[in-house]
């Protein structure tokens, strides 16, 4: 592809030719020939520069969003001539454009670049673009090479020291349900007389000696509190960190916090027009599920919530991770369907208008986001507002209070 320099050289040669012809000066025609000849060679030689190259890539198999990742690009010259002026553009994990030093035949160069994993998701077999304008910068030749390599960028995980989402028990219903019951859990509840069927392992020998009859230890029934996180995948926008990425980070961070406190976690999201659920979310699988969660799942949250009834059975808390797309304006009305099956509903509103501008995205304005938050609060939904560039832990530490 010719560059501007090619046009400049041709125009310069044309001017020299016209002036040289006008004044019958042969040296000007020589200069014009030099310009045109160099332009001609400059148009043809870059093709040779990008031929006979082999490119490989080495990158970690996993990384977290926001991490700096070392990616190595290996360029080998398998051709016959020296390769000059090579530039490699690699979009694996993040876009990186690097210059390759001149490569003699049979030479190999390993270029390490540190890239910030700005987006979550699977980066697999991303192509590498090689270009060269050498030797004269008159034209540029490009090649696109499929380079194998796989890196899964997991959502950014934030440690949440305390969040009411998993710590608090704000409703009477919860208190009832949380009263201890006898069972076979790990928590010690007390001592009682032996009954047929009790395990001999639970015999409490000091008390048996003291009471003169066999006494056994009694345990609290194991009771798992369950948290469901619904991620809105209706849309996404932007190039760097996006609202959906932040929603996934919220989901991952809250899920890890809950798992650390012994809660069971379910993840739900729309995928290809139907609801996809990860019913028993465990750490590695949970992160992979969120990392590979694509945007444009085909269902608005308002359509999705009424279908969640069976999947929310036994769940105490439902967290909605919702970017403030305009399509979610009707969320306060739809949330009743969730409140019918789960005692406690919270919403993390990811304020999409604060992310890098994308005019195509149907983003709520700040005022519309305020109205959405008020609507949810009015229906007893705990609202956490997450803004771009703000500390996620701080955003999730305290719910928004309804303005009087």
């Amino acid at each position: 592809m010719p560059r501007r320099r090619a046009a400049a050289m041709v125009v310069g040669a044309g001017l020299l030719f016209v002036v040289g012809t006008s004044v019958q000066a042969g040296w000007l025609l020589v200069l014009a020939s030099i310009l045109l000849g160099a332009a001609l060679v400059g148009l043809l030689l870059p093709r040779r520069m990008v031929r006979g190259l082999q490119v490989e890539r080495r990158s970690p198999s996993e990384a977290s969003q926001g991490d700096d990742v070392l990616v190595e690009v290996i360029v080998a010259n398998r051709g016959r001539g020296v390769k000059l002026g090579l530039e490699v553009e690699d979009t694996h994990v993040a876009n990186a454009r690097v210059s390759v030093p001149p490569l003699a035949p049979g030479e190999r160069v390993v270029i390490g670049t540190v890239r910030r994993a700005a987006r979550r998701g699977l980066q697999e077999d991303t192509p590498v673009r090689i270009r060269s304008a050498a030797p004269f910068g008159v034209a540029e030749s490009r090649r696109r090479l499929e380079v194998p390599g796989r890196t899964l960028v997991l959502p950014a995980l934030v440690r949440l020291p305390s969040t009411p989402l998993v710590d608090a028990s704000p409703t009477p219903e919860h208190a009832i349900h949380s009263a201890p019951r006898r069972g076979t859990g790990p928590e010690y509840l007390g001592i009682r007389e032996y009954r047929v069927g009790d395990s001999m392992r639970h015999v409490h020998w000091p008390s048996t000696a003291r009471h003169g009859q066999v006494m056994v230890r009694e345990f609290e029934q194991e009771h798992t509190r369950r948290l469901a996180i619904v991620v809105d995948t209706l849309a996404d926008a932007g190039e760097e960190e996006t609202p959906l990425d932040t929603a996934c980070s919220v989901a991952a961070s809250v899920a890890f916090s809950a798992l650390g406190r012994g809660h069971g976690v379910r993840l739900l999201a729309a995928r290809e027009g139907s609801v996809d659920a990860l019913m028993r979310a465990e750490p590695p699988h949970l992160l992979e599920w969120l990392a590979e969660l694509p945007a444009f799942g085909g269902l608005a949250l308002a359509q999705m919530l009424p279908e969640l009834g069976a999947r929310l059975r036994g769940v105490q808390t439902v967290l909605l991770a919702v970017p403030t797309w305009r399509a979610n304006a009707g969320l306060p009305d739809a949330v009743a369907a969730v409140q019918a099956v789960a005692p406690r509903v919270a919403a993390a509103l990811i304020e999409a208008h604060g992310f890098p501008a994308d005019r195509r995205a149907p983003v709520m304005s700040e005022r519309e986001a305020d109205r959405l938050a008020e609507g949810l609060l009015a229906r007893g939904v705990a609202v956490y507002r997450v803004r771009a560039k703000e500390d996620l832990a701080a955003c999730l530490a305290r719910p928004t209070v309804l303005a009087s």
Partner: protein
Amino acid sequence: MSGTTDRAGVVRPRRPKEPPEDSIPLRAIVGALVMVALVAVVAQRATDAFTSVGGLLLVPAGYVFSYVQRRKANVATKVVLAVGLLAALGSFLQGVRFAETVDEARIPLASLFVWVQVLHSFDVPRRRDLAFSVVSSLILMAEAGALSFGTGFLVFLVPWTALAGAWLYLSQRPATHEVAEPAFVRRFRERGGAAPAFGRSLVAATAATLTAVSAVFLVLPRLPGAFVRLPPFAVRNAVAVEGFAGQVLNPGLPASAGPGGPVVDFAPTAYPGFGSTVDLRARGRLSDRIVMRVRTPQAALWRGQVYDTFDGTAWTASDTQTQTIGQDSIDQSFAIPAPAEGFGAPTRRIVTTFYVAGREPNIVFSAFAPEQVFFPTANLSIDAYGSLRSPIYLEDGMVYSVVSQVPVTTPAILRGAIGTYDAAAVRRYTQLPNDLPERDVALADRITGGAVTTYDKVMAVQRWLQRNTTYNLDVPRQPPGVDAVDWFLFDEREGFCEHIASAMAVLLRAEGIPTRLVTGFGPGERNPFTGYYEVREADAHAWVEVLYPGIGWVPYDPTFGVPPADPGLGGRFIAPEVIRAVGRFLASITPEPVRAAGRAAGRAIATAAQGVLAAWPVAVAGLGGLIAIGVLARRRKRVRGQGPSPTGAAAAFVTLSRALAEEGRARRDHETPEEFLTGVRREGILVQEAVPDAEAVVRAFEWERFSGVDLPPEQAADALAAAARVHERLARPS
């Protein structure tokens, strides 16, 4: 955030300012480029001394200053430079105020360019500014080239071109701010040394560039210039002709030269044909000194003097009267009257500029017929034959221009020139020596026998002379009392241009055709680089002019031929001249036996080509056969290069790989068979029912390759069958 806000209210950031250029090699190369261009301009004496010295000293200082100050705003410097620019412009305007021709404005103009370059060199912080410097150096080179007369300009052009190539290479690389800074770069060599490879590539790139430049140079047309309205004329050192009264004075000849005087031989720097007589007894050689360079759109004979009376040994002019022509006060040119004998043929207007390089007689040489002359004197003289004389000698450094109307005649026009001659013209231009031997007339009759028109008679004589006489500068002087033309035609048959032209004039006059002898210079040799025709002392020449009724005088050169008045398209390209020059050079350095062998080979090739053309179907069939053999040989070589065909499980794996490649999933180089299999399964290319067969193939292949034990033939056959089933299953529409 700084930037512009569009109609949708989105703030668009401003384009970031280009950061300063830190590369010292790039700056050094640009500085060297500018210096070479500056020296080239100074070497052409295109600037005054102050500008030359100032430029040479200040430009390097400016580039150093720019590098040191590249990260600063330099507001004060910019103000000073702006003031300096205005001063340079003022100086230029002052200089051109009194210039009367474009040529006179060249020193102020070159000085302005140099000062612009000097001032610019103090403010080149960015790569873009350096590019401007390179363009500026190209302008300086163009100016120097336009003023250069010789190939000495190559001394500047070669290094400038090399530096420009280096600049093109360095500046095409991305700037440091355009690419990411790598964390590390490690190089590994698998074979050979890097330096020879770089050397080879540099040589190959240079050769490719030179080839392309040469090809472009050869195909670039040489069109006649059309935009210069006032051709240049100037004199550096005017030496007046003492006692000038219209006569020709040749400073290289002794004072005794002239009619009735002793024979004056050729001096190395003086042609005796410029004066009052052309004595055919004169001998000698002229030097190869360049006497003038001619800037002209086409080659022509540079006409000097005309002689009409032949006495058997020498030519003289019967009419020595001259007429003085005054300069036009408006455009400072001399209007030359049209030839008295008429001007009936179509003409082609050419503007020719003569750059005199050595002292010559006071003849204003020009292509026939001059119409307008730009000459640095107040008046000129013209004789009865249309020859121009100047009151000063032609001296080194003199420049003059002539606008000529060159008659464009064709055989048809000349054959159609039927009419009667003016009686006075016939008397003057058919004069012959009284004692001319009869055999000369008889020879003329014999040569022109059968020719009806004047043109056919002229061509018959010219052809006869070209076929039957030989050009030789070393012929002995003819004996005293012998007619020089008769002796040349019947005894010696060898001689030089004066003899050959005189013979033509005598033979034509014997047939009653008005003819006259002309002396001047041949067109010279065109320098392919400068475009100038370089006329040497040895190009001094004699030819004839023949009068056609109603048409006028038409030149004929029986020795070398007259350059065509209408060169046509082929004459607009320099390639034929360059090829001829290369051929001449090769011939000059090649021993005669090799040349003879080459000529024989050329004749054989020409004969073979004629044979091929005659039997073209056989030639086409043979060529087709050769191409077919070549294709087969290449294919065979390729098949051999692939090694023996695989057998056993390897053949099965190859079959499997090809089948999957046809489905759009070729095995990548880095993939092991197992990875390949996993990949095609994951990508859904391999349907589930074909997986067991594919796995069987892969396992058999791995066993064969890695177990160290030969695979039993039946298992190899099973693997091949499994691969075939996979292939068949993939080929079947799902």
